[in-house]
Protein backbone atom coordinates (compact mmCIF):
# COMPACT_ATOMS: atom_id res chain seq x y z
CA UNK A 1 0.00 0.00 0.00
CA UNK A 2 1.01 3.57 -0.68
CA UNK A 3 -0.08 6.15 1.89
CA UNK A 4 0.34 9.87 2.49
CA UNK A 5 0.63 10.98 6.11
CA UNK A 6 -0.03 14.43 7.58
CA UNK A 7 1.78 14.35 10.90
CA UNK A 8 2.03 16.94 13.68
CA UNK A 9 5.68 17.82 14.29
CA UNK A 10 6.70 19.85 17.32
CA UNK A 11 10.30 20.02 18.55
CA UNK A 12 9.47 20.53 22.24
CA UNK A 13 6.85 21.66 24.76
CA UNK A 14 7.26 25.35 23.98
CA UNK A 15 8.12 25.08 20.30
CA UNK A 16 5.75 26.00 17.48
CA UNK A 17 4.34 22.94 15.83
CA UNK A 18 3.05 22.30 12.32
CA UNK A 19 1.61 19.59 10.13
CA UNK A 20 4.16 17.88 7.90
CA UNK A 21 3.52 15.61 4.91
CA UNK A 22 5.25 12.26 4.53
CA UNK A 23 4.98 9.60 1.84
CA UNK A 24 4.82 5.99 2.99
CA UNK A 25 5.23 3.98 -0.21
CA UNK A 26 5.81 0.49 1.20
CA UNK A 27 3.10 -0.26 3.76
CA UNK A 28 1.94 -3.84 4.21
CA UNK A 29 -1.68 -4.45 5.30
CA UNK A 30 -0.37 -6.78 8.02
CA UNK A 31 1.46 -3.98 9.81
CA UNK A 32 0.02 -2.33 12.86
CA UNK A 33 -0.33 1.43 12.75
CA UNK A 34 2.73 1.82 14.97
CA UNK A 35 4.80 -0.55 12.83
CA UNK A 36 3.86 1.58 9.83
CA UNK A 37 5.22 4.61 11.73
CA UNK A 38 8.37 2.60 12.61
CA UNK A 39 9.02 2.09 8.90
CA UNK A 40 8.48 5.79 8.18
CA UNK A 41 10.85 6.63 11.04
CA UNK A 42 13.51 4.25 9.79
CA UNK A 43 13.56 6.04 6.47
CA UNK A 44 13.69 9.43 8.22
CA UNK A 45 16.69 8.29 10.24
CA UNK A 46 18.45 6.92 7.16
CA UNK A 47 18.02 10.36 5.58
CA UNK A 48 19.43 12.01 8.70
CA UNK A 49 16.08 13.49 9.75
CA UNK A 50 14.48 13.45 13.20
CA UNK A 51 12.14 10.47 13.62
CA UNK A 52 8.53 11.12 14.63
CA UNK A 53 8.16 10.77 18.41
CA UNK A 54 5.12 8.83 19.64
CA UNK A 55 4.26 7.00 22.85
CA UNK A 56 4.07 3.20 22.89
CA UNK A 57 4.96 0.33 25.16
CA UNK A 58 3.17 -3.02 25.18
CA UNK A 59 1.89 -2.85 21.59
CA UNK A 60 -0.78 -5.35 22.54
CA UNK A 61 -3.54 -3.01 23.66
CA UNK A 62 -3.15 -3.34 27.42
CA UNK A 63 -0.80 -0.64 28.68
CA UNK A 64 -2.48 2.56 27.50
CA UNK A 65 0.70 4.21 26.23
CA UNK A 66 -0.15 4.62 22.57
CA UNK A 67 -2.14 7.76 21.93
CA UNK A 68 -2.73 8.91 18.38
CA UNK A 69 -5.53 10.97 16.93
CA UNK A 70 -5.94 9.28 13.55
CA UNK A 71 -8.14 11.06 11.01
CA UNK A 72 -9.94 12.91 13.77
CA UNK A 73 -10.70 9.84 15.90
CA UNK A 74 -8.80 8.83 19.02
CA UNK A 75 -7.02 5.51 18.23
CA UNK A 76 -8.38 5.63 14.67
CA UNK A 77 -11.36 4.24 12.80
CA UNK A 78 -11.59 0.76 14.35
CA UNK A 79 -13.90 0.56 17.40
CA UNK A 80 -12.63 -0.95 20.66
CA UNK A 81 -9.05 -0.93 19.35
CA UNK A 82 -5.92 0.90 20.48
CA UNK A 83 -3.67 2.47 17.86
CA UNK A 84 -1.11 -0.30 18.44
CA UNK A 85 -3.73 -2.95 17.63
CA UNK A 86 -5.08 -1.11 14.61
CA UNK A 87 -3.91 -2.80 11.44
CA UNK A 88 -3.25 -1.19 8.11
CA UNK A 89 -5.74 -3.46 6.37
CA UNK A 90 -8.40 -1.05 7.64
CA UNK A 91 -7.00 1.57 5.27
CA UNK A 92 -6.96 1.67 1.48
CA UNK A 93 -4.10 2.08 -0.93
CA UNK A 94 -3.69 5.79 -1.68
CA UNK A 95 -5.31 6.99 1.57
CA UNK A 96 -4.23 10.26 3.10
CA UNK A 97 -4.09 9.98 6.92
CA UNK A 98 -3.95 12.82 9.43
CA UNK A 99 -2.10 12.02 12.68
CA UNK A 100 -2.23 14.41 15.62
CA UNK A 101 -1.42 14.25 19.34
CA UNK A 102 -4.14 14.23 22.02
CA UNK A 103 -5.26 17.86 22.26
CA UNK A 104 -6.13 19.05 25.74
CA UNK A 105 -4.91 21.80 28.04
CA UNK A 106 -4.37 19.08 30.66
CA UNK A 107 -2.20 17.02 28.25
CA UNK A 108 0.55 19.36 27.02
CA UNK A 109 2.55 18.16 24.01
CA UNK A 110 6.08 17.07 24.95
CA UNK A 111 7.29 16.33 21.44
CA UNK A 112 5.55 15.57 18.14
CA UNK A 113 2.77 13.10 19.00
CA UNK A 114 3.76 12.50 22.61
CA UNK A 115 1.82 14.26 25.38
CA UNK A 116 2.21 14.50 29.15
CA UNK A 117 -0.59 12.54 30.81
CA UNK A 118 0.63 12.86 34.41
CA UNK A 119 -2.64 14.65 35.25
CA UNK A 120 -4.18 11.17 35.18
CA UNK A 121 -1.54 9.91 37.65
CA UNK A 122 -2.37 12.75 40.03
CA UNK A 123 -6.06 11.82 39.88
CA UNK A 124 -5.17 8.23 40.83
CA UNK A 125 -2.86 9.42 43.61
CA UNK A 126 -5.64 11.50 45.09
CA UNK A 127 -7.79 8.46 45.91
CA UNK A 128 -7.65 5.67 43.34
CA UNK A 129 -6.56 3.04 45.84
CA UNK A 130 -7.79 1.19 48.91
CA UNK A 131 -6.06 1.26 52.29
CA UNK A 132 -5.47 -2.18 53.80
CA UNK A 133 -3.81 -3.49 56.92
CA UNK A 134 -0.83 -5.73 56.42
CA UNK A 135 -0.56 -8.95 58.44
CA UNK A 136 -1.46 -12.52 57.83
CA UNK A 137 -3.41 -13.20 54.67
CA UNK A 138 -7.20 -13.36 55.17
CA UNK A 139 -8.93 -16.62 54.28
CA UNK A 140 -9.84 -16.92 50.66
CA UNK A 141 -13.43 -15.92 49.87
CA UNK A 142 -13.89 -14.50 53.36
CA UNK A 143 -15.22 -11.30 51.85
CA UNK A 144 -18.17 -12.02 49.59
CA UNK A 145 -18.47 -10.04 46.38
CA UNK A 146 -21.76 -10.30 44.50
CA UNK A 147 -21.14 -11.59 40.98
CA UNK A 148 -22.95 -8.68 39.29
CA UNK A 149 -20.87 -6.15 41.21
CA UNK A 150 -17.65 -8.02 40.48
CA UNK A 151 -18.50 -8.04 36.77
CA UNK A 152 -19.29 -4.35 36.73
CA UNK A 153 -16.17 -3.49 38.71
CA UNK A 154 -14.18 -5.49 36.22
CA UNK A 155 -15.67 -3.57 33.30
CA UNK A 156 -14.58 -0.32 34.95
CA UNK A 157 -11.17 -1.72 35.84
CA UNK A 158 -10.54 -2.50 32.17
CA UNK A 159 -9.65 1.20 31.72
CA UNK A 160 -6.01 1.43 30.62
CA UNK A 161 -5.77 5.18 31.21
CA UNK A 162 -4.80 6.02 27.63
CA UNK A 163 -6.67 9.34 27.61
CA UNK A 164 -8.64 8.73 24.40
CA UNK A 165 -11.77 9.88 26.25
CA UNK A 166 -10.23 13.29 26.96
CA UNK A 167 -8.80 13.53 23.45
CA UNK A 168 -12.11 12.85 21.75
CA UNK A 169 -14.31 14.91 24.08
CA UNK A 170 -15.16 18.33 22.59
CA UNK A 171 -14.73 19.70 26.12
CA UNK A 172 -11.48 17.90 26.97
CA UNK A 173 -13.27 16.36 29.96
CA UNK A 174 -11.83 13.49 32.00
CA UNK A 175 -15.11 12.21 33.40
CA UNK A 176 -14.98 8.78 31.74
CA UNK A 177 -11.49 8.01 33.04
CA UNK A 178 -12.15 9.33 36.54
CA UNK A 179 -15.53 7.63 36.81
CA UNK A 180 -14.04 4.28 35.78
CA UNK A 181 -11.37 4.59 38.46
CA UNK A 182 -13.86 5.76 41.09
CA UNK A 183 -16.30 2.98 40.24
CA UNK A 184 -14.05 -0.04 40.03
CA UNK A 185 -13.15 0.41 43.69
CA UNK A 186 -16.53 1.80 44.74
CA UNK A 187 -18.31 -1.31 43.51
CA UNK A 188 -16.52 -3.87 45.68
CA UNK A 189 -16.65 -4.34 49.48
CA UNK A 190 -12.96 -3.54 49.93
CA UNK A 191 -13.60 -0.09 48.50
CA UNK A 192 -16.51 0.85 50.78
CA UNK A 193 -14.70 2.43 53.79
CA UNK A 194 -13.19 5.12 51.55
CA UNK A 195 -15.99 5.38 49.03
CA UNK A 196 -17.27 8.87 49.88
CA UNK A 197 -13.85 10.37 50.44
CA UNK A 198 -12.48 8.72 47.31
CA UNK A 199 -15.03 10.23 44.95
CA UNK A 200 -14.74 13.66 46.55
CA UNK A 201 -10.92 13.68 46.41
CA UNK A 202 -10.63 12.26 42.90
CA UNK A 203 -13.21 14.66 41.49
CA UNK A 204 -11.46 17.55 43.25
CA UNK A 205 -8.17 16.56 41.64
CA UNK A 206 -9.83 16.10 38.26
CA UNK A 207 -11.23 19.61 38.58
CA UNK A 208 -7.90 21.03 39.71
CA UNK A 209 -6.32 19.85 36.46
CA UNK A 210 -7.14 21.72 33.27
CA UNK A 211 -9.90 19.34 32.14
CA UNK A 212 -13.28 20.52 30.92
CA UNK A 213 -16.64 19.23 32.01
CA UNK A 214 -18.99 16.62 30.60
CA UNK A 215 -21.88 17.70 28.35
CA UNK A 216 -22.99 14.15 27.60
CA UNK A 217 -22.02 13.98 23.93
CA UNK A 218 -21.00 10.31 24.44
CA UNK A 219 -17.90 10.81 22.27
CA UNK A 220 -15.66 9.25 24.95
CA UNK A 221 -17.62 6.01 25.13
CA UNK A 222 -17.55 5.69 21.33
CA UNK A 223 -13.74 5.76 21.12
CA UNK A 224 -12.78 4.02 24.36
CA UNK A 225 -10.64 1.03 23.36
CA UNK A 226 -12.00 -0.83 26.38
CA UNK A 227 -15.62 0.23 25.70
CA UNK A 228 -16.09 1.75 29.15
CA UNK A 229 -19.70 2.87 29.47
CA UNK A 230 -20.87 6.39 30.32
CA UNK A 231 -23.07 4.69 32.91
CA UNK A 232 -20.01 5.03 35.13
CA UNK A 233 -20.13 8.82 34.68
CA UNK A 234 -23.72 8.85 35.92
CA UNK A 235 -22.62 6.65 38.81
CA UNK A 236 -19.77 9.01 39.70
CA UNK A 237 -22.10 12.03 39.55
CA UNK A 238 -24.49 10.23 41.89
CA UNK A 239 -21.74 9.16 44.30
CA UNK A 240 -20.20 12.62 44.23
CA UNK A 241 -23.39 14.58 44.86
CA UNK A 242 -24.41 12.14 47.58
CA UNK A 243 -21.01 12.36 49.28
CA UNK A 244 -20.91 16.16 49.12
CA UNK A 245 -24.49 16.58 50.35
CA UNK A 246 -25.12 13.67 52.71
CA UNK A 247 -21.72 12.63 54.08
CA UNK A 248 -18.90 14.30 55.97
CA UNK A 249 -16.31 13.70 53.26
CA UNK A 250 -14.59 16.88 52.13
Amino acid at each position, binding site marked *: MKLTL*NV*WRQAGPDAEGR*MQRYEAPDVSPEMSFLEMLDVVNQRLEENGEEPIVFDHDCREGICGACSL*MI*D*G*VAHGPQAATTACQLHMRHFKDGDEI*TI*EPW*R*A*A*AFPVLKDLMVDRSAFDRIIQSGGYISINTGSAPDANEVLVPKVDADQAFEAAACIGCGACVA*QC*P*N*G*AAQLFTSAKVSHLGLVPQGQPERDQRVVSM*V*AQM*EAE*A*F*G*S*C*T*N*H*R*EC*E*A*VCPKEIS*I*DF*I*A*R*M*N*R*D*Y*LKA*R*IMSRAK
Partner: protein
Amino acid sequence: MKWIFELYRSPIAKKAVMALTGVILFGFVLSHMAGNLKVFQGPEKINAYAEGLRELGKPILGHGELLWILRVGLLAAVGLHMLSAWQLTKLNRKARPISYAKRTPQAATYASRTMRYGGVIILFFIVYHLLHLTVGNVHVDFKHGDVYHNLVTAFQNPLIAGFYILAVTSLGFHLYHGLWSLFQSLGWSGPRFNAFRRQFAIAFAAIVTVGFVSVPLAILSGFIGH
Protein backbone atom coordinates in the same frame (compact mmCIF):
# COMPACT_ATOMS: atom_id res chain seq x y z
CA MET B 1 -25.55 27.60 53.60
CA LYS B 2 -21.85 28.10 52.92
CA TRP B 3 -21.51 24.46 51.87
CA ILE B 4 -23.89 25.04 48.96
CA PHE B 5 -21.68 27.76 47.50
CA GLU B 6 -18.62 25.58 48.04
CA LEU B 7 -20.37 22.70 46.33
CA TYR B 8 -21.39 24.94 43.42
CA ARG B 9 -17.71 25.51 42.60
CA SER B 10 -17.60 21.96 41.27
CA PRO B 11 -18.53 21.60 37.59
CA ILE B 12 -20.45 18.44 38.49
CA ALA B 13 -22.61 20.51 40.85
CA LYS B 14 -23.03 23.23 38.21
CA LYS B 15 -24.28 20.60 35.81
CA ALA B 16 -26.69 19.31 38.47
CA VAL B 17 -28.01 22.86 38.89
CA MET B 18 -28.46 23.03 35.13
CA ALA B 19 -30.35 19.75 35.19
CA LEU B 20 -32.62 20.70 38.11
CA THR B 21 -33.43 24.13 36.68
CA GLY B 22 -33.92 22.39 33.32
CA VAL B 23 -36.53 20.13 34.93
CA ILE B 24 -38.34 23.19 36.34
CA LEU B 25 -38.28 24.92 32.95
CA PHE B 26 -39.44 21.74 31.26
CA GLY B 27 -42.37 21.51 33.68
CA PHE B 28 -43.22 25.07 32.75
CA VAL B 29 -43.03 24.66 28.96
CA LEU B 30 -45.07 21.46 29.13
CA SER B 31 -47.92 23.09 31.05
CA HIS B 32 -47.67 26.27 28.99
CA MET B 33 -48.00 24.23 25.81
CA ALA B 34 -50.98 22.30 27.20
CA GLY B 35 -52.67 25.56 28.19
CA ASN B 36 -52.13 27.04 24.73
CA LEU B 37 -54.12 24.21 23.18
CA LYS B 38 -57.26 25.75 24.71
CA VAL B 39 -57.22 28.14 21.77
CA PHE B 40 -58.66 25.26 19.74
CA GLN B 41 -61.76 25.35 22.00
CA GLY B 42 -62.53 28.95 21.07
CA PRO B 43 -62.14 32.46 22.52
CA GLU B 44 -64.15 31.94 25.71
CA LYS B 45 -62.12 28.93 26.87
CA ILE B 46 -58.65 30.36 26.27
CA ASN B 47 -59.55 33.75 27.72
CA ALA B 48 -61.12 32.16 30.78
CA TYR B 49 -58.02 29.97 31.15
CA ALA B 50 -55.73 33.01 31.07
CA GLU B 51 -57.89 34.74 33.63
CA GLY B 52 -58.03 31.55 35.69
CA LEU B 53 -54.22 31.51 35.94
CA ARG B 54 -54.51 34.67 38.03
CA GLU B 55 -56.84 32.92 40.44
CA LEU B 56 -54.39 30.06 41.09
CA GLY B 57 -53.68 29.63 44.79
CA LYS B 58 -57.12 30.84 45.93
CA PRO B 59 -58.40 30.97 48.62
CA ILE B 60 -55.05 30.96 50.41
CA LEU B 61 -53.46 33.59 48.15
CA GLY B 62 -55.06 36.62 46.54
CA HIS B 63 -55.63 37.55 42.88
CA GLY B 64 -52.49 37.04 40.78
CA GLU B 65 -50.27 36.33 43.78
CA LEU B 66 -49.32 32.73 43.08
CA LEU B 67 -48.76 33.62 39.43
CA TRP B 68 -46.18 36.19 40.49
CA ILE B 69 -44.48 33.71 42.80
CA LEU B 70 -44.25 31.26 39.90
CA ARG B 71 -42.87 33.97 37.63
CA VAL B 72 -40.14 34.86 40.11
CA GLY B 73 -39.30 31.17 40.49
CA LEU B 74 -39.07 30.70 36.73
CA LEU B 75 -36.90 33.77 36.36
CA ALA B 76 -34.55 32.42 39.03
CA ALA B 77 -34.45 29.04 37.26
CA VAL B 78 -33.64 30.64 33.90
CA GLY B 79 -30.99 32.79 35.58
CA LEU B 80 -29.26 29.86 37.30
CA HIS B 81 -29.55 27.70 34.18
CA MET B 82 -27.83 30.36 32.08
CA LEU B 83 -25.23 31.17 34.72
CA SER B 84 -24.07 27.57 34.97
CA ALA B 85 -24.25 27.13 31.18
CA TRP B 86 -22.06 30.18 30.71
CA GLN B 87 -19.53 29.18 33.38
CA LEU B 88 -19.20 25.61 32.09
CA THR B 89 -18.89 26.81 28.49
CA LYS B 90 -16.00 29.06 29.50
CA LEU B 91 -14.30 26.18 31.32
CA ASN B 92 -14.78 23.83 28.39
CA ARG B 93 -13.36 26.28 25.84
CA LYS B 94 -10.23 26.64 27.97
CA ALA B 95 -9.78 22.87 28.19
CA ARG B 96 -9.09 22.55 24.43
CA PRO B 97 -6.93 25.56 23.56
CA ILE B 98 -5.60 24.06 20.31
CA SER B 99 -8.18 22.45 18.09
CA TYR B 100 -7.61 19.47 15.85
CA ALA B 101 -6.75 19.90 12.20
CA LYS B 102 -9.19 17.08 11.63
CA ARG B 103 -11.92 15.88 13.97
CA THR B 104 -14.55 13.29 13.18
CA PRO B 105 -17.45 13.23 15.66
CA GLN B 106 -18.41 9.70 16.64
CA ALA B 107 -21.55 9.99 18.74
CA ALA B 108 -22.42 13.64 19.36
CA THR B 109 -25.77 14.58 17.84
CA TYR B 110 -26.84 17.80 16.13
CA ALA B 111 -28.87 18.54 19.26
CA SER B 112 -26.01 17.94 21.69
CA ARG B 113 -23.65 20.16 19.70
CA THR B 114 -26.07 23.08 19.46
CA MET B 115 -27.20 23.31 23.10
CA ARG B 116 -25.47 26.65 23.59
CA TYR B 117 -26.76 28.22 20.39
CA GLY B 118 -30.24 26.79 20.94
CA GLY B 119 -30.17 28.22 24.44
CA VAL B 120 -29.30 31.70 23.14
CA ILE B 121 -32.09 31.55 20.52
CA ILE B 122 -34.52 30.55 23.28
CA LEU B 123 -33.31 33.43 25.45
CA PHE B 124 -33.93 36.04 22.72
CA PHE B 125 -37.23 34.42 21.98
CA ILE B 126 -38.33 34.58 25.64
CA VAL B 127 -37.63 38.34 25.77
CA TYR B 128 -39.47 39.01 22.51
CA HIS B 129 -42.33 36.70 23.45
CA LEU B 130 -42.93 38.43 26.81
CA LEU B 131 -42.95 41.87 25.18
CA HIS B 132 -45.17 40.55 22.42
CA LEU B 133 -47.89 38.51 24.11
CA THR B 134 -47.60 39.29 27.83
CA VAL B 135 -46.77 43.00 28.00
CA GLY B 136 -48.06 43.66 24.49
CA ASN B 137 -45.94 46.65 23.56
CA VAL B 138 -44.46 45.10 20.40
CA HIS B 139 -47.89 43.82 19.31
CA VAL B 140 -49.79 45.71 16.55
CA ASP B 141 -53.22 45.42 18.16
CA PHE B 142 -52.88 44.26 21.76
CA LYS B 143 -56.04 43.96 23.91
CA HIS B 144 -55.44 43.15 27.57
CA GLY B 145 -57.37 40.06 28.62
CA ASP B 146 -58.28 39.01 25.05
CA VAL B 147 -55.70 36.30 24.49
CA TYR B 148 -57.57 34.80 21.55
CA HIS B 149 -57.63 38.09 19.68
CA ASN B 150 -53.95 38.75 20.44
CA LEU B 151 -52.93 35.33 19.13
CA VAL B 152 -54.99 35.47 15.97
CA THR B 153 -53.93 38.98 14.95
CA ALA B 154 -50.27 38.13 15.62
CA PHE B 155 -50.03 34.81 13.82
CA GLN B 156 -51.88 35.91 10.71
CA ASN B 157 -48.54 37.53 9.92
CA PRO B 158 -46.38 34.75 8.42
CA LEU B 159 -43.16 36.37 9.63
CA ILE B 160 -44.23 36.32 13.26
CA ALA B 161 -45.70 32.83 12.99
CA GLY B 162 -42.51 31.68 11.29
CA PHE B 163 -40.31 33.09 14.02
CA TYR B 164 -42.37 31.40 16.72
CA ILE B 165 -42.20 28.09 14.86
CA LEU B 166 -38.44 28.41 14.45
CA ALA B 167 -37.92 29.25 18.12
CA VAL B 168 -39.99 26.37 19.50
CA THR B 169 -38.30 23.98 17.08
CA SER B 170 -34.94 24.94 18.50
CA LEU B 171 -36.47 24.44 21.95
CA GLY B 172 -37.40 20.96 20.73
CA PHE B 173 -33.78 20.19 19.84
CA HIS B 174 -32.64 21.62 23.18
CA LEU B 175 -35.08 19.32 24.97
CA TYR B 176 -34.17 16.30 22.85
CA HIS B 177 -30.67 16.40 24.28
CA GLY B 178 -31.48 18.04 27.62
CA LEU B 179 -34.22 15.67 28.70
CA TRP B 180 -31.86 12.76 28.20
CA SER B 181 -28.75 14.50 29.48
CA LEU B 182 -30.26 15.54 32.80
CA PHE B 183 -30.51 11.91 33.89
CA GLN B 184 -26.76 11.52 33.37
CA SER B 185 -26.00 14.78 35.15
CA LEU B 186 -28.04 13.79 38.19
CA GLY B 187 -26.78 10.22 38.16
CA TRP B 188 -30.15 8.63 37.44
CA SER B 189 -28.91 5.65 35.54
CA GLY B 190 -29.47 1.93 35.62
CA PRO B 191 -29.57 -1.00 33.23
CA ARG B 192 -33.37 -1.22 33.09
CA PHE B 193 -33.92 2.50 33.26
CA ASN B 194 -31.56 3.70 30.52
CA ALA B 195 -33.62 2.74 27.47
CA PHE B 196 -36.51 4.67 29.00
CA ARG B 197 -34.42 7.85 29.27
CA ARG B 198 -33.99 8.15 25.51
CA GLN B 199 -37.64 7.37 24.81
CA PHE B 200 -38.71 9.92 27.41
CA ALA B 201 -36.58 12.62 25.78
CA ILE B 202 -37.82 11.86 22.26
CA ALA B 203 -41.46 11.71 23.34
CA PHE B 204 -41.52 14.91 25.36
CA ALA B 205 -39.35 16.94 22.98
CA ALA B 206 -41.81 15.97 20.23
CA ILE B 207 -44.94 16.61 22.34
CA VAL B 208 -43.75 20.07 23.42
CA THR B 209 -42.66 21.07 19.92
CA VAL B 210 -45.72 19.80 18.08
CA GLY B 211 -48.04 21.28 20.71
CA PHE B 212 -46.44 24.72 20.49
CA VAL B 213 -46.15 24.71 16.69
CA SER B 214 -49.80 23.73 16.25
CA VAL B 215 -51.11 27.13 17.39
CA PRO B 216 -49.30 29.48 14.96
CA LEU B 217 -49.75 26.87 12.25
CA ALA B 218 -53.51 26.62 12.81
CA ILE B 219 -53.92 30.39 12.71
CA LEU B 220 -51.65 30.88 9.71
CA SER B 221 -53.53 28.26 7.72
CA GLY B 222 -56.88 29.81 8.65
CA PHE B 223 -58.03 26.78 10.65
CA ILE B 224 -58.53 29.15 13.59
CA GLY B 225 -59.55 32.77 13.05
CA HIS B 226 -62.18 35.40 13.56
